[in-house]
């Protein structure tokens, strides 16, 4: 797999007088795991929200597989092949684990059907189980999602994002709030996923990012500070100054 999947050109975002992002131009190849790092407030989440359609950019254009995405409503992004998880756990708490994923799978095909029996849409249920199996939650499928442990809820979120078979998977700090054991599981999961998918990862844990990524982007004050392979980033003096130095003990 190769070739350009997503291209951002001159992406900028301002909230009133505050410039959150400015002039981000970057393109992503298919089949890579790319990480975005940067200190708090660097614009990572804003950039993610733009890539997933939750925010529209104040300037610049997004192209996905050659098509422009600007102006597309958020719910259409999944249909184009871009799916995301959230930094703060974002699931359907009072639905079962299985239904969480099944309803996400359903969004691609059946949205306004008030007539058929949903239990008959067996293919969706099977796809949900496949996604649950991929994140190791198949044995919890009948439980209410709110009763899962934190790490499992994070994994469920990834299953929700995964079930749409996205060509680009956006993961916003999948290990946020996790202990070391859970983090280890999540890293193993990400490694498995990275084999077959194009993933964009926002993450704070430096060791994890350096180990997982093929490429790292560094944002700082809303601008792209550096872009390169993990080794280049590690030895980049600018990056060391603004970011790595202060968080060496991080993870």
């Amino acid at each position, binding site marked *: 797999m190769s070739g350009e999947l997503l291209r951002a050109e001159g992406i900028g975002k301002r909230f009133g007088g505050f410039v959150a992002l400015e002039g981000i131009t970057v393109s992503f190849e298919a089949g890579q795991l790319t990480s975005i790092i940067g200190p708090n407030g660097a614009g990572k989440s804003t950039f993610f929200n733009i890539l997933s359609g939750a925010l529209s950019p104040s300037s610049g254009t997004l192209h996905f597989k050659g098509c422009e995405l600007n102006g597309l409503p958020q719910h259409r*992004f999944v249909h184009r092949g871009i799916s995301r998880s*959230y930094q703060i756990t974002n699931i*359907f708490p009072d*639905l079962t684990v299985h239904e969480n994923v099944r*309803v996400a799978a359903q969004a691609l095909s059946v949205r*306004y*059907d008030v007539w058929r029996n*949903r239990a008959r849409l067996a293919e969706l249920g099977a796809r949900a189980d496949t996604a649950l199996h991929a994140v190791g939650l198949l044995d919890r499928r009948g439980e209410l999602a709110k009763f899962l442990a934190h790490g499992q809820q994070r994994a469920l979120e990834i299953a929700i994002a995964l079930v749409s078979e996205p060509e680009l998977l956006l993961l916003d700090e999948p290990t946020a709030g996790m202990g070391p054991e859970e983090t280890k599981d999540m890293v193993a999961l990400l490694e498995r996923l990275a084999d077959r998918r194009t993933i964009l990862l926002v993450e704070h844990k430096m060791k994890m990012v350096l180990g997982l990524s093929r490429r790292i982007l560094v944002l700082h004050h809303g601008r792209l500070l550096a872009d390169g392979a993990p080794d280049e980033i590690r030895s980049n003096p600018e990056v060391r100054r603004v970011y790595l130095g202060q968080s060496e003990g991080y993870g």
Partner: protein
Amino acid sequence: MTAQSNRAAATKSVFGALDRFGDQRVLLSIAILIALPWLLPSQALAVNVLIYGVVVMGYNLLFGYTGLLSFGQAAFFGCGAYVTGIAIGRYGMPWFAAVASAVVVSTILAAVIGVISTRTRGIYFSMVTLALAQLVYYVALQASSFTGGENGLRGFTVDRISLFGLQINFLDPLNKYYVLMVFAAAALWFQSRILNSPFGAVIEAIRENEQRARACGYDVERSKLLVFMLSGSISALGGCMLALHLSIVPLDILHYQTSGMIVMMVLLGGARSFFGPFVGAAAFLILEDVISLWTPHWQIFVGAIFILFVLFLPKGIWGTLLETLPIARPRR
């Protein structure tokens, strides 16, 4: 002991089945409604439970299952009743055609109110629905040549109903009850169908997490509009039943107090439970009946009881019953 446990098991399965997914909840609900005139102290009360049960059930789709707190459901209840009465009285339509057109007109009204209100969220949604429903109230008040204004709509009486060549005396209370029950049964079946459908899963997802539902690929606004219309059409059917039952349509039916009463009924019975709306309607109407016997200020007491429910039984009578009974019921 075995008899007792058998009995417990039977109750269990009845209550469980009544709320479980599948068609048996429709059949069991209908069975209870068939027995209702003998379960309640009066047949007049049973008819009212039937009618308000349907209205509240439609509202439950919006409030209980989708999580949208509307204060304007009276608009569709009233619209269904008024259009039924006008169609029969003014245009001489047969009753079934009047009911059909009333449901269609009310669904269109729900589309109009829904397009405006579903753009807003939370308290704003509640306020917009309240305001628009009051608008409908004032239109009905002002258009008195059509609606009878303050006096309500009169001059249409359905005394006979012919069903497949069968002449039924509609003035007989029991006949009336069972004819209207056919509508209620249809509404129960339709509601169950919606809840079982893929769209039923969508509205639950929206209730659980709107942002996530959108990120999953659902057009949340459009889905809300659709459920708003479905909800309005079912409540409108209750309005049609009321018009056929009373042969008059009181203007009060459109007032926001009616909307408030619908909210109270659904909370008393148990939002998000299939049969809860009928239980809530029965509880409210019985309370009203009993308390108004010894004081004209019955609303104070009903209000106090309602507050106790919200504080201590937030799942309502039926919802709590389903939860308290040790039913091994698979929550989807």
